[in-house]
């Protein structure tokens, strides 16, 4: 772990350690900052909260949101829930996987895009929906998807 990264993790830990039920806010603070929760952060978190490393590991792996590895520069989350399925989300996702040459949770070889499933973004009247780096998109067609991919690959 870089010393810079270790320092940033310590800052997140310090900011959250006195909150009631501090573990989730702490993990969010680390992932918001670094994009993931490095394995190497687990011992410091456990020590700060007087938990076992197993307990911290158990919480990180329980929740779909937390990642243990760095994602690509952009994260595309494709909704797979029923409302989006009714508007063709599964075939949209299949074409996207083909186009990017990766499976769900995978990252493209150029490091530009990580593809993740998500189960409802609350945009069910404008289905199919995707979220790109936290920005919601609705009525997603292949053209919209192409534009998202192009801009993800272009912007560094």
């Amino acid at each position, binding site marked *: 772990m870089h010393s810079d990264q270790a320092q940033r993790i310590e800052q997140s830990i310090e900011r959250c350690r006195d909150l009631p039920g501090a573990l989730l806010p702490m993990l969010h603070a680390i992932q918001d900052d670094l994009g993931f929760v490095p394995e190497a952060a687990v011992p410091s978190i456990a020590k700060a909260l007087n938990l076992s490393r197993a307990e911290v590991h158990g919480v990180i792996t329980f*929740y779909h949101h937390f990642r243990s590895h760095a994602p690509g520069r952009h994260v595309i989350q494709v909704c797979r*829930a029923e409302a*989006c399925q009714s508007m063709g989300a599964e075939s949209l996702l299949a074409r996207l996987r083909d186009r990017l040459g990766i499976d769900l949770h995978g990252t493209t070889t150029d490091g530009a895009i990580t593809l993740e499933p998500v*189960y409802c973004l609350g945009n069910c009247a*404008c*289905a199919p929906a995707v979220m790109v780096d936290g920005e*919601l998109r609705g009525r997603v067609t292949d053209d919209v998807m192409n534009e998202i991919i192009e801009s993800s690959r272009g912007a560094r």
Partner: protein
Amino acid sequence: MSFRVFVPSDSAALSVGAGAVASVIADEAARRGLDVTIVRNGARGMMWLEPLVEVETPAGRVGYGPVRAADVASLFDAGFLTGGKHALSIGVVSEHPYLAKQERLCFARVGVTDPLSWDDYCAHGGSRGLQAALAMSGADGVAAVTESGLRGRGGAAFPTGIKWKTVLDTAADQKYVVCNADEGDSGTFSDRMTMEDDPFLLIEGMTIAGVVTGATQGYIYVRSEYPHAERALLAAIATAYERGVLGESVLGSGKRFDLEVRRGAGAYICGEETSLLESLEGKRGTVRFKPPVPAISGLFGKPTVINNVITFASIPVIFDKGAAFYRDFGRGRSRGTLPIQLTGNIRRGGLVEKAFGVTLNELLHDFGGGSASGRPIRTVQVGGPLGAYIPESQFDVPLDYEAYASIGAMVGHGGIVVFDDTVDMAKMARYAMEFCAIESCGKCTPCRIGSTRGVETIDRIIEGRDRGAQVVILEDLCNTMLAGSLCALGGMTPFPVLSALKHFPQDFGLGPDGLAVAA
């Protein structure tokens, strides 16, 4: 002359380009030397018209939608700032049949006001419920909630007054109010809209709960998939502290109530109230055994009012206009109104708040205008991923808790997902089991193991391997999950599976009697 133009900042509107439309309108106005103020309101809930741009005129607010950035110049040319005619014009927005036919109690302000303006909120009836609650005893406050007939809008429909009374009557040094904003059901967004488009309503409802039951600390547990809602809540809470709504003396009453936002982490199970409490405590979101109920031993072991966003959003009007006013909406034991979400393959999707008793036929055809694809509607799923698939023959059943229970379905959080005749119901049944397997917390065996065995069994049915025997196994497995699961995830996943099997046996390669067809 100055003009006021409204462009929604609701994330559904932003998802289809409202942000770009707002900035192009500002640029175009500047280029033409016009004095235009752009207000970022919430969405009206007519999602097929988004981005829906409105202009204030003497006749009322006139709407145009769906507006693309490329349409803006032509809107100016048509004189839209004074309500001029344009191909995208929908006339006076509040007179649009989609809105005029609704009974909006929770959503009365949504789309009308600037969500982050406390003054706008109060000018449209906000804060009156809280003022009334502050003048009441706790017992009278609980009685008002009980008399209103309000039941939990998250899906379980438990009488809210009973929860609140239990918390009020349980002595403790600390009590909590927790808002379940982990709106994970597919086909639902009424919580999201409330948080983004009228966040003070939720703050007011939770503060009333605190004042009435003697709780001084509140938490809103909002799902990580809703970053926009989280930002709106944080901004509104900051304003509420500045204006003395929250903090050590709520509206100068001397009563304390603090409120904090906590973010979930992408676990559907945390919409179950005891899992949510575990998660708030910083643990894995596994389901707790009940009893004790959270009203007696909830967050950190203390008495806790835990309700859904829409339940809290229903509270202020009950205190403002009285329990009887609220109870007069609805039918049977389902009192008040329900914000219904019309979604999926539907032409006019959006939010429809109606008193209980409306039918799917009215919702799908009068409001929804049929499917988006133009093909016949084959089925709808009501109540999220644990809700039953309802065939056309039951589209006239009135939407209320008891009527739906009597046909093996549930109202849930009011989400309606529409499918046209291209849907493969065996695939949807398989998905229900797959979703349960992905989201199971793992605490009880019927859910943890049953969901995976369910996927395998449905795969064998689809492949036609010993189909008759596999159907018997699937039904048996569903009964085990129904009766033996610890919470609604395992206990209700059989609803979509069995309803698909019962109403659409042909999709599973079965005859109309549900028996395997000889190959």
